[in-house]
């Protein structure tokens, strides 16, 4: 009996072994090669996280790699997602450079960064770099009003932030959800700090604004300028770069810098405290702040440079002629969650 069992087991084992030997042939995934990634962990590569548009990232990264020979691996995502990653990361080094988050967000997370005095420091406007060099501005994006010339008469062109609250624009204003769009939140913060009359925030403005929106809140910031350009909306606050691009492409739209002043989105670049390759990261920061890249950026993407020595693109008024709206943006960004909660409850 025992012998029988042994024989049977032996038999099964033999079958099993043979089957094993054969079956590996058709379950195996074979990679006869993969992209050489020896640079990945070597000194010759850096990790960059960026919420910038890929159209901007790719040519600059490409030029950087080809010029310096340093490999750039990057993750491109929204600011919110990137911040979430930063909050979750704990002690694990995620990246060497945070490239393109807005300055207000970076201010809230200064402990994650280390100061770096770029070689271009003297060319940068002090308004757009951190006082202790924790971050440097990369580009400036003013918020402007855009209107469709076919839908808005000359005399009706909105001039000020107050116009956004005028009931005559009811249902005609394009605005993206500030939960999703950084520029929308910037617009929201501008409205909150407008005519505060000593109070911290002017929620009355917001209520009027929401009333004017008639519940049409767009998912993405690109829906705002595209919506105005194609006539879905008459006007709306949006990014200067988008309006100028549309005008250059021949769209029948107009641009207005609000009377009370313009707010800016300042995208900054910062060196991570736990950067694994800080030397290469510093080279990268210097590179993106160099005159060549800043000039290319202005010409190609119509973004404003933080460098003093770059002439702004055609069709844009110079920074010096712009009325800048002062506000304690950092403080508002600190309360972002609360503000958005209130916003959500007001909308609903």
């Amino acid at each position, binding site marked *: 009996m025992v*012998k*029988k069992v042994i*024989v*049977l087991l032996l*038999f099964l084992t*033999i*079958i099993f072994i*043979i*089957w094993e*030997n*054969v079956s590996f*042939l*058709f379950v195996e*995934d*074979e*990679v*006869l*090669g*993969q*992209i050489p*990634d020896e640079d*990945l962990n070597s000194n010759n590569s850096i990790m960059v996280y960026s919420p910038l548009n*890929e159209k901007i990232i*790719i*040519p600059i*990264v*490409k*030029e950087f*790699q*080809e*010029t310096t020979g340093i*490999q750039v*691996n*990057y*993750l*491109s*995502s*929204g600011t919110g*997602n*990137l911040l*979430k*990653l930063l909050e*979750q*990361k704990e002690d*694990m080094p*995620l990246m060497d450079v945070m490239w393109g988050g807005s300055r207000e967000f970076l201010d809230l997370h200064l402990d994650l960064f280390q100061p770096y005095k770029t070689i271009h420091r003297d060319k940068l406007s002090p308004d757009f770099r951190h006082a202790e060099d924790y971050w440097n501005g990369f580009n400036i994006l003013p918020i402007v009003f855009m209107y469709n010339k076919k839908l808005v008469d000359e005399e009706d062109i909105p001039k000020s932030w107050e116009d956004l609250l005028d009931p005559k624009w009811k249902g005609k204003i394009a605005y993206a959800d500030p939960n*999703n769009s950084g520029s929308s939140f910037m617009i929201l913060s501008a409205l909150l700090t407008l005519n505060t009359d000593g109070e911290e925030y002017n929620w009355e403005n917001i209520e009027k604004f929401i009333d004017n929106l008639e519940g049409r809140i767009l998912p*993405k910031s690109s829906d705002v300028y595209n919506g105005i350009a194609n006539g879905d909306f008459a006007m709306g606050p949006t990014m200067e770069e988008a309006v100028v691009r549309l005008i250059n492409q021949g769209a029948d739209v107009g641009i207005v810098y609000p009377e009370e002043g313009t707010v800016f989105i300042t995208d900054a670049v910062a060196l991570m405290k736990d950067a694994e390759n800080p030397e290469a990261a510093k080279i990268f920061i210097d590179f993106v702040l160099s005159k*060549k890249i800043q*000039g*290319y950026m202005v*010409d*190609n993407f119509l973004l404003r440079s933080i460098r003093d020595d770059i002439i702004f693109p055609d069709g844009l008024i110079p920074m010096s002629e712009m009325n800048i709206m002062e506000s304690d943006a950092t403080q508002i960004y600190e309360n972002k969650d609360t503000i958005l909660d209130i916003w959500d409850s007001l909308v609903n």
Partner: protein
Amino acid sequence: MEKYIEMKRNNFFFHKLFISFILCGLIPLLIITAALYGFAVNFVRDMIYDQTYRNISIAHDKINSLFQEYDEIIEKLHKDEIILDVLSGEISMEDNSNRVYEQIYSALEGVVDKPPLYILGREKEVKFYTYPLPDSHEIAMKYNWGVFREADGALGKTVFYPQKIKYSMGQNTVLTISRSIYNNEGNCIGYIVIDVFREKLADIFQSSINSLPMEILVLDKYSYTILDLQDKKMEGYFQNAVYLDGDEEVETTEKSLFQFKRSNSVTIIFPNEKYNMTTYATVSLDILNHLSSSIKTILIIGYIISLLICSIISIILAKDISDPIRKIISLMKKVEKGNFDVEANFKQRDEIGLLAMYFNRMVVRLKKYLDEIIEKQNQLRETEIKMLQAQINPHFLYNTLDVIKWSAKLNRPDEVTKVVTNLAKILRNSIDCEEEFTTIEESLEFLISYLNIQKIKYNNKFRIEIDVDPYILQQKIPRLLLQPFVENAIIHGISGTDKKGLITIGGEKVGNEIVFYVTDNGIGMTADEMKVIEREDNENHVGINNVRKRIKLYYGDTYGIEFESKKNKGTKVIVKIPFEMGDEINHDKGYHC
């Protein structure tokens, strides 16, 4: 229990053979098919690999010759005096535009799918173009960006720079070929630029991969996607980057960003050193999987069928071997129980047949030996019986003749006549005694004759009563079974007393036995005397022992003689033998175990 064990053993032998046969049948099959299967799969895979590699290599030859062709266009133009003069501003662009375009189109003559070609002045505002000039070229040249930086660095050599440029009508170029133009002083004064349409490259690959479905990815050394036949959207993007849509949740980047691993596929990497591009051809192994799964199915069905056939053959073979052995075992059991009339009747001429043959011979020999032994014993027994019978006759004959002598002397002719008549009967009985057995009736007649003689001898000193059940009269009993006891009753019992003697001879059937008893009212025996008589080796009582031995010989130890006696009262002898049914009596029975 013993039977159970034997059964198990038999089964085990069968199973052992059965499993051995199956193993011997299937293992080579398994090994061979596994080896063949592995060989086939590997062969197909190698074939796929080779073919893919060859296709990609052909595609690259075509690309090389395409680039060569474009390079030759640049070669024709870059030394052209008119172009040089226009670029350096020695002659005006407006006046000489036609001449320059003439040169350009003559250089492009014969080129299929003419690519966009630009001649751009670096210092002077000079532009010649066969397609609307994309802004990106102008901006790039302004900032010495990309292809222009490379062209400057190449010092008059043609550079091949991967970059995606969007053209109108949904067309894209994926690669820019450029060369700096130098004036006589060696200063760069402009560039010749040719953009390579995506479709041009894609067609080359498409035509090379008609036979096998594969995914083609062409990257530069920084994993910039030049061409992606499957996912056009990835062109112009980096492979080693993660692009996330706004809504997508980001996981902490544990996953490798650089793996090209796809399930069930083989990726072939073909580097084109000359143009710094690497082609990743990913071939789906679905065909292979399809093949292997159908082979697997066939194999499994084949295994099942083989197993069935193997099992049937194994059962037949195992039975063929184990059955005769089991049969021989059962025959041996019969022989063990004493039945020698068995024969293993096999037709095989193999070892099993030999075994059966020798078994049969052995049984025959054994039977012969046993028969011889029985025969010898029989002869021995007959001799003994004859000797015993012979012991009786002379003794009695002497006594009787003595009676006749005295009767004659006393002149008693009647007595003489009677004695002689009865003696004659007795003698005839003895002469006829070829048969060892006789009926009880004959036996009693003999006894009466004997007693008649004795009565005369003892002057009617005793009386005789015979009380035998008539039912048993025809039963056969050994000769002279009772005579010794009658004789003893007369000689030892009655002759010693003065009183009138009585001898009773009885016989009846009790159960399966016939019981005879011979009683007398003579002197009887004491217990000590009884013991002497009951001793079987007593030489003084030849007659009793004679009978006792004969009963044992014929009927076995269960039968025999018993004595009951009291001093001065008489003696009773009880003889027990079996009652035998039917007419035929097996006289050999006593020898059976």
